[in-house]
């Protein structure tokens, strides 16, 4: 069953609207919270007038830094806000939460929020990131005399803009208290991340906080952290003795709920005349929003991608008056690979070597920065199969070589790699008298297919249909499984599901031989087999449902734990190769992606269908990253000027060609018995490089600043 294309088990409830998302939660007596946000980019709030808001119909309370809800300092780094909201009057960025209005209806809360006025002591916000301009770069070619004869140097600088996750579901939280027990329905990439944060900031025992996040409408990193609405809804609910629902507006999501930082990378590579890299230096610069702590190690992808005796990466951080920068699908790698994969293409052209060939000449058979062997690596096979199926051999060598009507046609390729590994996870499997099984863990399904992975692995282990398995995720009272981040969900949770499913079978056999009502009572457990959902021994076979019914037992369950993988001897990564075709109009310059093929080496694939969707989704997001997406800052105010989905452009259907995805499906022998590595982020890594390279092949223009918009190609 593992590796078959299986429909999502939660597909039907999602398309029929039955799946309960956080904001859908109906709690009797709920009141609504609405955030008031700063309209300056830096300074302090000196006074706030809340009288009109308090007098407005339905208003229950207005909280501000002058009348705050007590929240304790954040301790754990969660890539989100540095400070809990309303605890000080400093303004660090435009759109920072400076008030929270609670009213009987959402409209009343919103209208009253509009009546709150703030007086500021204002300072000019720092929002300019040095280096990033929309200039077109000239090719740089230099031979450095001090190196061995024939050595070639290439250097260039690559820049990327601010980008936003733009998950369809905005950030929503519903909080309700029963005595000193808190129940929170919220968006999250991991229920335990919420529980831990709330325990810190509310100062209550984590055991008294029940977090529910069964369905999440996209996260991409933006729901790893907990943003202002989470603690405020919980604290206000306690203070007012009412359940409270708070949902961020789209602009609030843009301003305060995290973004991909802007980056610059200056890559300098030297190589021998036949293209063997002798050194790679990547000097990376990343922005950090002063709302948070996090910044991107943008140059680090260079450490593990190509073989070279000398590799050096650096990181500089530019703090800016913006909300927290945070993880966004392949943080570091998505931007990092744009630079290195573009540079490899530029170097290949400079040397007159085919880009695939140059990558093979610098193939890292060992982890480049540590010299350790890989757990498994079949990247060469990805290149070979991808090139073959794409028809890479027919690619003209020169640029601007193919014209189809008014369209200049070019092709490009790039490498994808993303870290792998296995954390600790615990999962519970329970068998029910009706013949079904349930499986639970605190894991999250952000639309990734994690529910279905759980169901497939239990079904596979027990030998029952997928439809007989009920996965239950996103509940903090379940055993502690992996949060959805870093592409580790299946690699970490999958083995735990297998352990738990094995353990529950042992429990079942124990019941079978020990329960006096069981037909297997008194048998030697060693003679009892559990197969295809049934127990058999000595010619008698009985399904587990019937056995439980016969024994009058309400169920058997077992918690399985798969430990964290500790292996200092090997390097673990997923690998892949992208090949694409791009067309650019000869007159008006718009670039359009017209063909795509990705080949991935991500170990065992559990669900061929959802895995393909993951890679396709990542390529779609990568096309947006490369051609469309940029959040622009108005430097006078520090506001994201296009903080809405009409002006921040994500791809639409007609921007996306057919995306062919192939998995090599070679199990990784060391990562786990299951052999699965990660796929959630792998697919976006390299996309920008592949497209930039194809644009160059089509037009002869090298764009080193994302997004590659038509104005850079005229």
């Amino acid at each position, binding site marked *: 069953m593992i590796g078959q294309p299986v429909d999502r088990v939660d597909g039907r409830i999602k398309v029929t609207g039955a799946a309960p998302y956080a904001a859908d939660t109906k709690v009797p007596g709920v009141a609504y919270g609405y955030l008031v946000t700063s309209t300056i980019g830096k300074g302090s709030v000196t006074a706030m007038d809340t009288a009109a808001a308090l007098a407005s119909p339905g208003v229950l309370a207005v909280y501000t830094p002058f009348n705050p809800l007590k929240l304790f300092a954040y301790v754990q780094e969660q890539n989100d806000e540095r400070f809990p909201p309303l605890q000080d009057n400093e303004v660090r960025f435009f759109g920072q939460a400076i008030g929270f209005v609670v009213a009987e209806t959402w409209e009343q809360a919103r209208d009253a929020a509009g009546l709150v006025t703030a007086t500021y002591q204002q300072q000019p916000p720092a929002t300019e990131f040095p280096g990033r301009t929309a200039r077109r770069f000239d090719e740089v070619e230099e031979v450095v005399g001090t190196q061995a004869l024939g050595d070639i140097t290439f250097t260039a600088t690559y820049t990327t803009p601010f980008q936003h996750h733009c998950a369809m579901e905005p950030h929503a939280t519903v909080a309700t208290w029963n005595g000193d027990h808190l129940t929170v329905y919220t968006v999250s990439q991991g229920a335990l991340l919420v529980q831990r944060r709330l325990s810190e900031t509310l100062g209550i025992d984590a055991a008294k906080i029940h977090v529910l996040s069964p369905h999440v409408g996209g996260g991409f990193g933006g729901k790893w952290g907990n943003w202002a609405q989470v603690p405020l809804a919980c604290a206000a609910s306690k203070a007012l003795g009412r359940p409270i629902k708070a949902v961020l507006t789209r602009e609030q999501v843009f301003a305060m709920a995290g973004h991909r930082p802007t980056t610059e990378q200056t890559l300098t590579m030297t190589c021998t005349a036949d293209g063997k890299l002798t050194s790679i230096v990547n000097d990376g610069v990343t922005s950090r929003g002063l709302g948070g702590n996090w910044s991107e190690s943008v140059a680090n992808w260079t450490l593990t991608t190509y073989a070279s005796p000398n590799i050096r990466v650096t990181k500089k951080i530019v703090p800016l008056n913006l909300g927290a920068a945070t993880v966004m699908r392949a943080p570091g790698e998505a931007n990092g690979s744009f630079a290195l994969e573009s540079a490899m293409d530029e170097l290949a052209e400079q040397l007159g070597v085919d880009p695939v060939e140059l990558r093979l000449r610098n193939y890292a058979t060992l982890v480049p920065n540590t010299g350790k062997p890989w757990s498994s690596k079949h990247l060469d096979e990805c290149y070979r199969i991808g090139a073959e199926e794409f028809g890479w051999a027919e690619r003209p060598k020169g640029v601007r070589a193919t014209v189809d009507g008014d369209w200049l046609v070019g092709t490009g390729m790039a490498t994808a790699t993303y870290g792998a590994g296995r954390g600790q996870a615990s999962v519970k499997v329970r068998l029910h008298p009706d013949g079904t099984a349930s499986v639970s863990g605190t894991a999250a399904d952000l639309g990734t297919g994690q529910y279905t992975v759980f169901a497939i692995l239990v079904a596979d282990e027990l030998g029952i249909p997928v439809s007989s398995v009920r996965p239950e995720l996103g509940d903090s009272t379940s055993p502690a499984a992996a949060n959805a981040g870093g592409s580790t969900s299946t690699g970490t949770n999958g083995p735990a599901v297998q352990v738990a499913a094995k353990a529950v079978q042992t429990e079942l056999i124990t019941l079978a031989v020990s329960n006096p009502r069981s037909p297997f009572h008194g048998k030697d457990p060693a003679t009892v087999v559990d197969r295809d959902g049934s127990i058999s021994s000595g010619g008698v076979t009985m399904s587990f449902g019937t056995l439980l019914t016969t024994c009058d037992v309400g169920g058997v369950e077992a918690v399985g734990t798969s430990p964290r993988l500790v292996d200092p001897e090997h390097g673990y990564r997923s690998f892949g190769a992208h090949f694409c075709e791009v067309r650019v109009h000869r007159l008006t310059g718009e670039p359009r992606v017209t063909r795509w093929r990705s080949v991935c080496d991500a170990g065992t694939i559990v669900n061929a269908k959802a895995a393909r969707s993951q890679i396709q989704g990542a390529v779609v997001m990568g096309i947006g990253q490369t051609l469309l997406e940029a959040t622009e800052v*108005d430097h006078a105010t520090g506001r994201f000027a296009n903080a809405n989905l009409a*002006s921040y452009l994500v791809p639409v259907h007609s921007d996306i060609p057919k995306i062919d995805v192939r998995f090599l499906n070679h199990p990784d022998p060391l990562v786990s018995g299951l052999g699965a590595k990660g796929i959630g982020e792998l697919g976006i890594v390299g996309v920008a490089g592949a497209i930039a390279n194809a644009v160059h092949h089509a037009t002869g223009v090298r764009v080193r600043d994302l*997004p590659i918009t*038509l104005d850079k190609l005229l």
Partner: protein
Amino acid sequence: MRAFDYAAAATVDDALKLARPGSAFLAGGTTLVDLMKLDVLTPDRVIDVNSLPLKGIRLHAGALRIGALERMSDVAAHPVVTAVHPMISRALLLSASWQLRNMASIGGNLLQRTRCDYFRDVTSACNKRRPGSGCPALTGVNRGHAILGTSDSCVATHASDVAVAFVALEAQVVVRGKDGDRTIPLDDFYRLPGSTPERENALAPGELVAEVVVPTLPWARHSTYLKIRDRQSYEFALTSVAAAVDLKRGVVQDVRLAAGGVGTKPWRLRAVEEALKGGVAMERTFADAAESAVDGARPLAHNAFKTSLLKRSIVRALLDAAGVR
């Protein structure tokens, strides 16, 4: 959004009587309600005009007449429109999305507001929204803004696509007020921002747009509407060009050209038209003529590319409309 009164008008007279300072007519609501949600428009009375008889699409006395309440999707699909003025249909189909076109009316489309992000954010200054408060787009984020017809007060584009086609085709609008009808060429209906960007057109408060009248032009069947944007669909134009060409033996007899995405109103390109007349329909001719399109253009920090893009779009549209390569 602020609380407001709602009234549905049954007749044109009703609608005109219900109108008062601070009221707004509601057609499809895709501009009005959108901007009310953002607090950019705060009418205290909303007058629903959807049951008014400002409907119908017909040929009459040498002109195509389109009622102001006809929906964009119905106009785009109407056989008379596709037969007489395919350019209109094309401009509509390249606008917005199916869902929006099903709701949005032609009258509302002509009166839609600019997409300038500062205009749409009430925390920002904006001379159009709050006269005298300043124009942050001049020095701020202005990649999408206009290069033609701008002033120091405002550089916002007019966002409608179909208005560009209408201006190329010399359409007129019929405006209905308490004192009767006025018929105004659409090109004159729109105003340049000057020092009063808050006044966008010749409509007096409380007046209705009743009808759009487009003269027939037999050779305008050889026409196109070209829309260039970053995203393939569902985006406003960076540049757009409405072009119709009358060719005889490869020579341009007559031509109509207007551009969108570059002007503070739909931008008729008369100088380019003049330069094209009598020329041999070929890329060189088109490119030479297109040069004058940007006379007087005032590019800003992020939209300078539009001068080049506009000229290139004109060439591309003319090649399409003339069917030459």
